[in-house]
């Protein structure tokens, strides 16, 4: 398929010609209680061969963002504005036929819970083969061979036998492997993994993440890894986007964000993570308060009701003005604190923990 058949309008290059460019994405749901703005003006870029970790609490808009890329929201209750560019194809305005050819083919998705995400009514092999035949054609036999090959690649033992099993014959980890096999059967350019390890045992989690990493190295695809676990990001991703209340609050490489976090929310996430080096009797510090209601988000900086540094940055400023993610490229954050305060306060919290340690 040539790129010419994909475009419905003259190709307009956005940003620095990134592989995936999300620009000012806003997703709103119409509910009985009012309009929920789940994603609010989100922008980011992703290159092939890299992994972007999107981190945040429940309701921060991580999954909503990923579902928008594939156009999986119910159009009758969802309003999506902004742009999502996959090379020179814009996806928000693309019609259904374009999206159907794209899904499972160029962009594939691995969902959180492999127990419910695989069809209980069809064999694992059929579910993998179906995707392949839909996009690449070929006979049933070829597709079946391909399914066996994929199962083998994701480390399912005796794939020629397991191909005819139903998902309920598989363990949780094996189901997620099958899900990954299904996602990768058409060699997608972009894989979105939405909390792929959350529903799995801790021991299996590492295996699945290693598998994803290995497959990415083999295929050179881009990966978006959605998680609430900074530990997962540290091991797997090359870049991080921290989301809060539908907005990006910090962005940068994994090294930048984990070594020199600048946003108080990122500090909070790091502080709530257990460390092997800290003693067991020091309690973890959760981010106080609860995530804001997206029906009526707080004015100004959405994090200010939970932030310990509102008075340092100026209460007036934080409650009135929404901070913008700056600078436009590189390590950026959306916080009113002065740069020297961010430097001063962040290490303080880190030494804080070390001293107690």
């Amino acid at each position, binding site marked *: 398929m040539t790129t010419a058949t994909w475009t419905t309008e003259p190709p307009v290059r956005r940003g620095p010609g990134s592989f995936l460019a999300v620009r000012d994405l806003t997703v709103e749901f119409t509910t009985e209680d009012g309009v929920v703005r789940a994603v609010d003006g989100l922008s980011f870029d992703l290159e092939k061969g890299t992994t972007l970790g999107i981190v945040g609490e429940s309701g921060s808009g991580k999954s909503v963002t990923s579902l928008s890329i594939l156009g999986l929201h119910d159009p009758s209750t969802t309003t999506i504005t902004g742009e999502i560019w996959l090379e020179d194809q814009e996806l928000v305005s693309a019609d259904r036929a374009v999206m159907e050819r794209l899904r499972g083919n160029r962009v594939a998705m691995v969902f959180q819970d492999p127990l419910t995400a*695989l069809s*209980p009514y069809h064999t694992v092999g059929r579910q993998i083969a179906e995707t392949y035949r839909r996009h690449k054609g070929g006979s049933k036999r070829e597709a079946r061979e391909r399914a066996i090959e994929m199962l083998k690649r994701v480390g399912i033992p005796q794939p020629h036998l397991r191909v005819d099993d139903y998902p309920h014959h598989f363990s949780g980890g094996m189901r997620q492997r099958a899900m990954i096999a299904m996602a990768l059967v058409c060699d997608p350019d972009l894989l979105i993994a939405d909390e792929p390890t959350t529903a799995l045992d801790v021991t299996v989690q590492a295996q699945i993440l290693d598998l994803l990493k290995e497959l990415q190295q083999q295929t050179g695809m881009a990966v978006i890894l959605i998680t609430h676990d900074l530990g997962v990001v540290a091991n797997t991703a090359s870049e991080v986007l921290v989301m809060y209340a539908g907005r990006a609050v910090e962005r940068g490489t994994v090294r930048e964000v984990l070594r020199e976090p600048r946003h108080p929310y990122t500090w909070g996430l790091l502080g709530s993570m257990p460390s092997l080096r800290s003693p067991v009797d020091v309690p973890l510090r959760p981010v106080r308060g609860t995530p804001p209601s997206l029906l009526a988000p707080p004015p100004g900086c959405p994090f200010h009701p939970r932030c310990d540094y509102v008075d340092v940055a100026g209460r007036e400023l934080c409650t009135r003005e929404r901070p913008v993610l700056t600078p436009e490229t590189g390590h950026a954050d959306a916080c009113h604190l002065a740069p020297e305060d961010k430097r001063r306060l962040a290490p303080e919290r880190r030494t804080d923990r070390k001293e107690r340690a």
Partner: protein
Amino acid sequence: MLAFLTRRTIGAVITLLIIAAATFFLFFAVPADPARLACGKVCPPELLEQARRNLGLDAPVWEQFVAWLAGLVVGRDYEGLGHCPAPCLGYSFVNREPVLETILDRLPLTLSLTFGAAVFFLLFGVGAGVVAALRRGRPLDKIASVASLIGASVQIYFVGTLAMYFLVYQWQILDRPQYIPLTEDPIGWAYGLLLPWLVLSLIFTANYTRITRSTMVEQLSEDFVRTATAKGLPRRTVVTRFALRGTLIPVVTIFGVDLGSLIGGAIITETTFGLQGIGRLALRAVTDSDLPMLMATVLLAAAAIVVFSIIVDILYAVIDPRVRLS
């Protein structure tokens, strides 16, 4: 599978035995005397005694029940009427006809009525339910909800009578409903039963629309349906192959019950359209205190329900591979 069938068959036989016994003993608990009915208005005691002996009602109730059961299994001899081979359901108290023959005579009509109507209400009901679920909250959904509410509220003797009046007598679009055997004249068969089929399916359709719609809405929000969409499958495939599959489970459940009870006789439908099926036979048996006929119709109705419940269980396993027959 074989173990399942064996176990369910034994269970079915026990169920039917209990139902037969209950019906038999309840019959004698009712203060109606079939001997008196057979004897006529002016009945001297010795004639009454004679009638009672003729009908076999002079023995103790449990002996009569055992005799009836034995007739079913090995056949039975009747004084003056000769041997009745197994399975013997006895002779009608009213006209002394063999009950089995009467049942077999009426059964084709009831089966035709049942399965013909089933095709209509299954197609209309499930179809409307799927469309309503896919168009949730939009005009087509609302039309389907209102229509199914009306369908669930009306009665056959009301719609049936209206339909007869307009379609048959007033506009003469259709003939009076009648039963022509399928083997004799397939077109005449369908034509003769079209009106009862449509009227009967009207009431059942509503139930299927409601259940299909609500289950379908649930299924459409399942994760695996979203996965199917995320794989790039077209909407039609996602709906028919994934969402509809789980919707079939509750549909099959009520379909089994409905078919079972319809084979037991559609009394109101048969009466409204003047058809001679199992339903009217059962009704007559009750009003005439015709014990052998009553036992046969009750047993047929019960057997139909029991058989269809086994079939439904097998279908569960066919639809959902997680269900195992054991």
